[in-house]
């Protein structure tokens, strides 16, 4: 069943779109990432113009994250207070990120910069998580299945003023680190055109030391607002949000997210981390290869819409 997309102006298979949305939704629910870093390259691959792909995936992320969030809310695995604190930083960061993005676009190398950002951040985050996850997994195995001892050391995070109690996360820390984390993620998310979950999740685990179970729901909560903000911005400035494309992706996505959340809750925390790390590294490797290998076509026709 072919469907013609009114904004992207291409005809694609509807089943393919539902499938793509479903897979990304599944991962989104499992790992608490919005899936933007996966769906955007996948949309390029099936022939959607880059500007439309970036803007529309933001819209799709809102839907799958919302579906996932509801499932997490029901299980009380969302730290709303922490989410709001992160969001304050996130929105400021996203706003600044959009300004930076437009400035870079005027300079002409934004495409390369976005790609480099992906490779660098996915590479660092993926490698760190992989090593950590592997260690935790081995420890858990040696200890006969019991979770690793909680780390008491919190370093500079505990030494700052403006402390606040985060019940759900079981933390009593300063609000400055979460605001800064939110800000950094929002900034990068706006530049890279994604929700930022793949940076947010490890930042919450390794910098804020939040429990993994709470991290995913809280990350989804924050992502919804950042992605919604990005969607509106793209719709108003570039007219590149394709509602028909988003609809098919999100129907697949929301269903996938529901399954993903259920699978994620059944898996051990170390397994979730390890799998997410592998996924991040695979995407990073693919993007890095594209930069390093000689492209078969040296020339490209610039997309008039944006990127």
């Amino acid at each position, binding site marked *: *069943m*072919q*469907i*013609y997309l*009114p*904004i992207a*102006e*291409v*005809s694609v298979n509807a089943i393919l779109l539902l499938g793509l949305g479903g897979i990304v939704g599944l991962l989104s629910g499992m790992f608490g990432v919005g899936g933007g870093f996966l769906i955007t390259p996948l949309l390029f691959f099936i*022939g959607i113009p880059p500007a439309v792909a970036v803007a529309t995936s933001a*819209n*799709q992320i*809102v*839907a*799958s*994250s*919302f*579906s*996932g*969030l*509801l*499932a997490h809310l*029901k299980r009380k695995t969302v730290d709303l207070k922490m989410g709001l604190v992160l969001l304050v930083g996130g929105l400021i960061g996203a706003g600044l990120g959009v300004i930076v993005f437009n400035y870079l676009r005027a300079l*002409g*190398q934004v*495409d*390369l910069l976005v790609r480099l950002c992906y490779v660098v951040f996915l590479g660092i985050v993926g490698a760190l998580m992989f090593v950590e996850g592997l260690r935790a997994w081995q420890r858990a195995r040696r200890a006969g299945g019991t979770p690793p001892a909680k780390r008491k050391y919190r370093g500079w995070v505990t030494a700052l003023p403006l402390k606040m109690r985060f019940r759900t996360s079981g933390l009593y820390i300063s609000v400055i680190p979460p605001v800064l984390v939110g800000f950094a993620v929002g900034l990068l998310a706006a530049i890279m055109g994604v929700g930022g979950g793949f940076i947010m999740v490890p930042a919450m685990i390794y910098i804020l030391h939040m429990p993994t179970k709470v991290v995913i729901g809280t990350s989804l909560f924050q992502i919804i607002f950042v992605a*919604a903000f990005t*969607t*509106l911005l*793209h*719709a*108003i400035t570039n*007219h590149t*949000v394709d*509602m*028909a494309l*988003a*609809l098919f992706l*999100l*129907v697949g996505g*929301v*269903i996938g*997210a*529901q399954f993903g959340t259920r699978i994620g809750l059944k898996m051990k925390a170390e397994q979730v981390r390890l799998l997410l790390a592998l996924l991040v590294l695979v995407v990073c490797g693919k993007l890095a290869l*594209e*930069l*390093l*290998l*000689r*492209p078969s*076509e*040296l*020339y*490209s*026709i*610039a997309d*008039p819409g944006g990127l």
Partner: protein
Amino acid sequence: MRRLLAGLAFLVLPLMAEAQPSVVEEDVVLGLSHSRVRITTNFDGSEILIFGAIRREAPMPESELDVIIAVAGPSNPVVVRKKARHWGIWINTESAEIRSAPSLYAVASSAPLSEILSEQTDTIYRITAPRAVWTLGSEKEFAEAVLRIRQNQGLYTLKESSVEVTEQTLFRTSVSMPANLTEGAYRTRVFLLRDQQVVSDFETVIDVHKVGLERYLFNLSREHSLAYGILALVIAIAAGWGASAAFRMLSRA
């Protein structure tokens, strides 16, 4: 034989010119299977049958008649970037703006172009795809890149010997419009050629536009972009909530 024909033409042509000084000798009467393409939600490309007849007010000339049909989509300036290797990675370095390049360019002819179309005629009438992409001399490699990329995307096509000519009077061909069609007026030109020279040409327009929901969404996104953005978000939230509610019901049952 050729020389004999040329000799005959030499004898006959002045007579004909005298008899009908101002009338074009051969005229195209054109038909299209459809003169407008409606892009609906399930649009999946379209095949347009182009057919016609040649009206003559004078005896048929002796030389072979050839037909070339060119369909051109709306033209726009395009920016072309070239990648080069710097510090080990491939990045965009040079770029050039091509003045005007059609979004689609389909050429169909009744015989191989090298046999029926002279370089000079092509330059005057801008028939083949390379002539349709307008550039300055310095941007030649970039213009060639546009041709190559769009040929690979199936947007620029050349189908030689795909126009059927019957009795030197009737001709027909079909042009396939791909699924990734942009809106606009598609200029369709028909050339009649004899001895590598255009003896007559005819031009019409195929109108391509979105209809129904496609039209509505497109207009909304341009004219009321804030409302469109909010609507997109509302749909996203509703779908997210709907799926969640549906699954809750399923798991309870």
